[in-house]
């Protein structure tokens, strides 16, 4: 990705990995969460990074920064997650955070039609102003409350397909699809910009080693 200097800012693998094996590739991605206030952005991230869920998550101030490393095939993917504050008064800060991001999760609340509309405007804004190759995922959160949903799955799905977005309905409370959506993003992200690992290793030989390497 030559156009954006920071995209795919992969570290030299040896320095990062505990056991010093240089076989595996390591990538680092900047991911930003956007969406209306109280749709569950912070909860999603907390579930993904710490496996926790707080019923009464406090409103984010400014932005929160977290990291999580996962392994896909033979690649160590480190997410640098910027969880932005959804409140309108922090809106002006958002461009700062999504600028140079390789991935974005736009979150809405399936019980809240307004939040879905807001998600659409976020998608529009990202298409206009974020880096052109940004991977955008649409997450309909609070899927555990699907019995009182307002935003239909199909409606969102159709919108996602039309705009080339990844789409999942998630639940930070139950953990449903939370890891999957990050995983899907990780898979979709280009990992071949790493100068050291040009050859992607076959699937079969790696699972145990991978776990050893990246997650100890």
């Amino acid at each position, binding site marked *: 990705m030559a156009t954006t200097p920071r995209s795919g800012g992969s570290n030299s693998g040896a320095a990062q990995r505990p056991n010093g094996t240089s076989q595996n590739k390591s990538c680092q991605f900047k991911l930003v969460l956007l969406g209306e206030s109280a749709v569950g952005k912070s909860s999603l991230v907390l579930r993904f990074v710490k496996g926790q869920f707080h019923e009464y998550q406090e409103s984010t101030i*400014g932005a929160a920064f977290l990291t999580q490393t996962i392994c896909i095939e033979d690649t160590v993917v480190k997410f640098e997650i910027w969880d932005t504050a959804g409140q309108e008064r922090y809106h002006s800060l958002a461009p700062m955070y999504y*600028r140079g991001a390789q991935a974005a999760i736009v979150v809405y609340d399936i019980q809240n039609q307004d939040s879905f509309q807001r998600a659409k405007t976020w998608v529009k804004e990202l298409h206009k102003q974020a880096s052109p190759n940004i991977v955008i995922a649409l997450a309909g959160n609070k899927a555990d409350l699907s019995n009182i949903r307002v935003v239909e799955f199909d409606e969102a799905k159709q919108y996602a397909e039309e705009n080339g977005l990844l789409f999942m309905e998630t639940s930070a409370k139950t953990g449903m699809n939370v890891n999957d959506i990050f995983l899907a993003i990780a898979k979709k992200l280009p990992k071949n910009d790493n100068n050291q690992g040009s050859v992607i290793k076959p699937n079969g030989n790696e699972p145990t080693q991978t*776990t050893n390497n990246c*997650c100890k």
Partner: protein
Amino acid sequence: MSGNPFDDEDAPSAGSDEILEGFLCPICRADLKSIDFLTEHFARQHAEEEDALKSVFKDIFSKAKKKILNNFEDDRNRGALAGVMPTASAASAAGGASAAGAAGGGAGAFRTQLNIYSNMAKQSVGAERSYLEYFQSVRNPRLERYASETNKLIIRLHRLLKDLPTDAVQRKHHEQQTVPWLDGSSVKLCPNCAKSFHIARRQHHCRLCGGIMCHDCSRFLQLENAMQLASLSSTRGEPLQQMRHHEDRAIRVCQHCLWLLDTRQDMHESRTCRPMLVHVYEEIRQLQKQVSPDLDMYVKIVNSLLDGESIFTIADAGALRGKIGQVAEKIDLRSKRILTIHSEPGSRDEALKKAIRLSCVQAIKERMLSLPPLPDEALISQMQERRRMETEQRILTEQRMAMEAYERYGAANQTGINTEHRSFAQGSDLQSLNNWSAPQASTTISSVDDPLIEQINIIKGYIKQARQDMNFDVVETLELNLRELQREVYERQRRSSTPQLDS
């Protein structure tokens, strides 16, 4: 796909443990504490990380920014944001600027160690100027205006009340004569509540300014209060009491006039009223002032007793000590009472109360409890004995020396001295020298004859009185006076006896 990549989620890899939250810079992750600081920091520190195209834009924008800055100092933050992110919508930038104030207090539970405030140079206080004179020049005329308006009302009130007829028609006439009523023919709405006047809502007049209002907007000043305000004695209270209706016993006034009068009364009260605390504290001060000379006196008495002087007795010291103790008790009681006066906890009153109590306790401790104890009676008598011995010794030596001197020069001046001494020789009463001197030879028979002895007796009476009143200063002077007299008598007696010895 190689197995589940989230197996070890609970043990996150190094560096991901901490959650940062706040106004984080997306590049250096420093917490900038506010939207304004963050946008400015981002514009300054990370501008060079823009790509080439954007930097071109930035140049243009920064030039524009400078221009704008010169014109609108207030829009500084907006300009900075626009400079960095030329593509950002103007609306969002404006939102940032306006939200800055509201978000200023925000701080997440997780902060970065870097505190931007500590790195900023402290701003010095700029130019100052006092607006006191201006303030006063505005305030004084206002106060004067209020004062004159209030005075006018008081004067009118005085005239109105001076001989207020009890009859309603006469009263109305009197009121209208004192304060001319405004012509209400063209007034359609109540000037206070803007409700229209009609048959059910009639016009009324303020008896003090003549202004028009409706009944709902009228206020009533009770005649008793009005009398007080006009500083008229309420001797006319009885005829006023006879007025049947409640409204008759009051004066209809407008809100403004009533407010002026109320304000005056409040000010008057606040000036004259003295809180409980002040009363009690003044009592304490009074007591302390009173006891101060007693304290000095007591020390003096004790010292004099210890020196073996007989001006004061041990009973004097005891009595004075008792008196001081009583005063100390009173002060203690009053300072405790001050503590019980209600005040808001943590207020300045509270601190004042505590300070008063502390100072009282300290004063009692330092000045009163530290007084020397009553001297032992045995010690006193011992001291007195010694002093008597010394005095006798001295007198003896004096006598001897006098004798020697007399013998030496006696021959030359014999006749002169003799005549002189004879003139004093009549009254040889020694009654007054009861302490240590010669035996009491004769009784009070001749004392009446001698003015000196009479004087001594009078002084003794005074001393007794002064002792009872614990007026020890007087006791001291009187005692000293008495001593002089006694010495005089003694001298006279001695001189009168010496020639007798010679002859």
